[in-house]
């Protein structure tokens, strides 16, 4: 393309082109476009700038892309601006020398190219940046290239591969070169070879290249023109082509008579009113479709309106015309190769997507599990319904937020926040147990009400203290991003962290309950408090500890959930019903049961979402209906306790 050609010339002329004020003059001559650039108008200006061959052009383009070009009001010239401690500093576009510092916003107007323009600038910069010593620039160039595959850049790209020191970038360059070959290679053999390379490429970019090669259009013709690369022949009324749509295509493109709809009939009848009748039918009788049709047909016989196109007429038209989808690419060998490659990619993508959904399901299950695990202790083991459990989750999350306000380092604050959240909610849990719940152990339904009261009070308190607006709880940098297994399967680190946390709690709880003295005592107290007491166990102490433990875990879960979603006063309410169901479905009194419940609910919800991806709400509805039905048939949950522990 012109840009590249001119670049080559420019580079050749480099020593002679240096002269002061040349870039500024050039910029001034395209002033309007540069100040208010648009994706569609910026192309020619970029071409001219690149063609000028001025050595300062790449620097200017980068600055422009960065939104750091300013137009100074005083002299109406372009400057590169940097904002530092001393306000805005303007630098000369040619020399980079500081011209003026510390000026106000009004003195210089910032030029803000939009995303589309920035992309165009990026494309123009590719040629300059491909072999730049700075790896960031090279990466940027490849990103820009990947966004807009331009055949003209194939040459420079291939030329830069050998000199590329970075292995990852080199691989990426080769991949991009392959994409360019597949789409724009000179001979069919080169292209087919490149396309075959794509059959194992799962990346969205690679799939996009295949789709672009296989782009089709719909063609309506009585006779197929020569050299048409037909993808498929369509039959109106079957597959994706409805009869109405097919006929409308004939009407639009080939001037067949248009269909007459009810609204057209109505309008025609209104237009042909003749006294009190239309086509011999009295107006008062025109309140049914039959009569209207009769009147219309009468008008047709009079020749006043066009005839209706009935099913037979449509059939006749369809017999006369063929409907085809046709590849834009005219060479069948290439489209065949691409079809084969695409089929292979699709199978792999399908498999990976299934795996991806599976991971999402596990991740969702671990979130449900984490939210519910505290309940598995307080409700599952102790049988106390704690409706304020969700608010303990919220307290944990707000603890995380407060810590982050005090400790600015995200990693450190997380390390502080986790135990602190545990401590805060442990304390809250113990206080609640001592003040309220212990009076109500023999009245479980009333525990529900009292803790519900605490729940709404805590929620409102949080609102009064922290405001109603969601608060930020930011994860440390090392939890940003995602673990990429292949181009389809990936999962964010924060979700993995939640999964690990859930797993750790599962092990911890199992250990405490099964392997420690405390666990033994907890089980003893929950099964038979009097007997336990007579064996020298202090049931009061055990209840406090257990309740505190369950609440404390909720606090830690709150930090984790806050990191991945949001911190609001209502976040607990979002999880409470779900959590209770998780515990009930899994089977009360058993940590494994909670795990099973969370897995089932998470898996089921993702399954429905997969079948009906456009409506997440439906997935949730079906999940709850499923839970209701499930409990009817297994009232004790998945992992049902047997014998005396079941408490019957």
């Amino acid at each position: 393309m012109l840009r590249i050609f001119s670049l080559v010339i420019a580079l050749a002329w480099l020593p002679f082109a240096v002269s002061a004020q040349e870039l500024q003059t050039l910029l001034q001559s395209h002033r309007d476009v540069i100040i208010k650039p648009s994706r569609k108008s910026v192309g020619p200006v970029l071409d001219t700038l690149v063609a000028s061959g001025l050595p300062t052009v790449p620097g200017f383009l980068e600055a422009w892309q960065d939104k750091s070009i300013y137009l100074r009001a005083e002299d109406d010239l372009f400057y590169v601006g940097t904002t530092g401690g001393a306000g805005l500093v303007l630098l000369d576009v040619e020399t980079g020398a500081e011209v003026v510092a510390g000026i106000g916003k009004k003195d210089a107007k910032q030029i803000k190219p939009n995303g589309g323009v920035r992309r165009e600038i990026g494309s123009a910069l590719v040629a300059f940046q491909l072999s730049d010593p700075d790896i960031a620039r090279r990466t940027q160039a490849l990103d820009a290239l990947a966004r807009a595959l331009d055949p003209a850049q194939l040459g420079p790209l291939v030329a830069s591969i050998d000199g590329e020191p970075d292995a990852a970038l080199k691989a990426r360059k080769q991949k991009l070169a392959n994409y360019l070959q597949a789409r724009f290679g000179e001979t069919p053999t080169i292209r087919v070879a490149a396309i075959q390379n794509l059959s194992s490429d799962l990346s969205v970019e690679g799939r996009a290249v295949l789709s672009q090669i296989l782009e089709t259009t719909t063609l309506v013709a009585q006779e197929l023109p020569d050299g048409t690369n037909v993808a498929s022949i369509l039959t109106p009324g079957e597959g994706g082509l409805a009869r109405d749509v097919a006929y409308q295509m004939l009407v639009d493109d080939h001037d067949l008579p248009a269909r007459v709809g009810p609204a057209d009939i109505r309008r025609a009848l209104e237009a042909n009113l003749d006294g009190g009748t239309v086509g011999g039918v009295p107006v008062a009788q025109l309140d049914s479709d039959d009569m209207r049709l009769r009147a219309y047909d009468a008008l047709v016989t009079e020749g006043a309106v066009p005839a209706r196109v009935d099913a037979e007429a449509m059939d006749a038209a369809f017999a006369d015309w063929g409907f085809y989808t046709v590849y834009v690419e005219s060479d069948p060998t290439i489209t065949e190769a691409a079809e084969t490659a695409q089929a292979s990619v699709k199978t792999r993508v399908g498999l990976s997507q299934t795996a991806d959904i599976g991971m999402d399901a596990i991740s969702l299950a671990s979130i449900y599990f984490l939210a519910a695990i505290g309940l598995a202790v307080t409700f599952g083991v102790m049988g106390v319904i704690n409706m304020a459990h969700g608010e303990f989750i919220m307290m944990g999350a707000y603890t995380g937020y407060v810590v982050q306000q005090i400790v600015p380092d995200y990693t450190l604050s997380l390390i502080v926040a986790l135990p602190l959240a545990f401590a805060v909610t442990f304390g809250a849990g113990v206080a609640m147990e001592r003040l309220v719940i212990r009076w109500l152990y023999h009245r479980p339904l009333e525990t529900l009400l009292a803790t519900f009261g605490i729940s709404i009070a805590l929620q409102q308190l949080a609102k009064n203290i922290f405001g109603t607006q969601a608060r930020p709880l930011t994860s440390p940098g090392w939890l940003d991003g995602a673990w990429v297994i292949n181009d389809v399967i990936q999962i964010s680190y924060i979700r993995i962290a939640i999964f690990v946390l859930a797993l750790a709690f599962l092990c911890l709880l199992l250990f405490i309950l099964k392997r420690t003295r405390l666990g033994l005592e907890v089980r003893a107290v929950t099964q038979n408090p009097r007997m336990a007491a007579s064996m020298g166990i202090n049931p009061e102490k055990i209840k406090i500890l257990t309740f505190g433990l369950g609440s404390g875990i909720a606090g830690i879960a709150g930090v984790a959930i806050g990191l991945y979603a949001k911190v609001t006063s209502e976040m607990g309410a979002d999880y409470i019903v779900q959590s209770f169901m998780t515990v009930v479905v899994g089977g009360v009194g058993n940590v494994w049961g909670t795990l099973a419940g969370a897995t089932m609910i998470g898996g089921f919800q993702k399954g429905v979402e997969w079948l009906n991806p456009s409506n997440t709400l439906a997935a949730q509805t079906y999940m709850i209906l499923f839970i209701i039905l499930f409990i009817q048939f297994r009232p004790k949950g998945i992992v049902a306790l047997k014998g005396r522990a079941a408490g019957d």
Partner: protein
Amino acid sequence: MTRLTKLMATTAASMLVAGAAAAADCPVKVGVLHSLSGTMAISETTLKDTMLMLIDQQNKAGGILGCQIEPVVVDPASDWPLFAEKARELLTVHEVDVIFGNWTSVSRKSVLPVIEELNGLLFYPVQYEGEESSKNVFYTGAAPNQQAIPAVDYFLEELGIERFALLGTDYVYPRTTNNILEQYLQDKGIASEDIFVNYTPFGHSDWATIVSDVVALGEGGKQVGVISTINGDANIGFYKELAAAGVSADDLPVVAFSVGEEELSGLDTANLVGHLAAWNYFQSAETDANAEFIDAWKEFAGAERVTNDPMEAHYIGFNMWVNAATAAGSTDVDAVRTAMYGQEFPNLTGGTAVMLPNHHLAKPVLIGEIQADGQFDIISQTTEVPGDAWTDFLPESAVLKSDWKELGCGMYNTETKTCVQLTSNY
């Protein structure tokens, strides 16, 4: 009530010689109907504060018609039936002259029958789905053609988007907006298989699958863009997941219609730089009026507070109401309504807002890119776009027109040349 009105009228008539000051009974009461508790308190408390600030300013400037303005604040507590009850209370018990309030569409639909029955006056400040026109409501927020359509145009023209993901929370505003957009995109030549629509519940937090579905749309070899009508808190999880998936705004731009400065304050925006929002106002607009407004707001409500689009809508609406009442010489609803048509008031973003006979404003549309500091960088600003009550892009409503000034009808069928109804559809 009638007795009171009569009394008022006689007093007014007898004191007419004393000047316009007597045309209203003092103090003039302004109802503020915003939720101060419940889910919507997040957004609406700010608007209540805005109204109190505006009223305070107006009182310092001498009030209206020689009277001080007394705000009557009630709390409908994000409970939609309660909105109707409180509106009735404001109009009949407190006898306010005008109400500023509501945020959600459903709360507006709840209030409409009451306002129309009692001939009240409501200023509604939030962007909404259109398809409605009430004689008693002035819509100072954006209609779809003042926010959604220009944003989509920007996607099509400036970013060259060819494939669209319309993500929204499952309620009326996203549903209707997406319906309009789907039709609009198809009219612009985007095939229906290139439009992916998804609805999620309020407060949704599990976005992994949806984000990966959207990323996978790129496999068609077309540039993908996301139009987000996701509401409130759910945005936080959505943007966090987007950032985690490593999706940059250059590859997959997202334009949001419900994300403003206020919502961004719950997020670390470092990973969201370059994503877009479309509004009629951004805090970062560089005008003197805006600087003044922001200063006043920070002084009134606190230094860390931000301003947003519905606040500007109240700012324009309240000032227009003051001017209209002054022009009419009375706070009587019918007189004020007549005086409202053609009222002009400078926008905070520059240019002038005009009240149209269809009770909507003509306002410029701004598109901003999210910056690391949680503010928006305005990269596109149109000229004033007149708000359209009935969209031109859906066949049922394309034939409808709202004109309360000339036609005296909010739902006029231009095809049959009849007024479908005088009340609004709720």
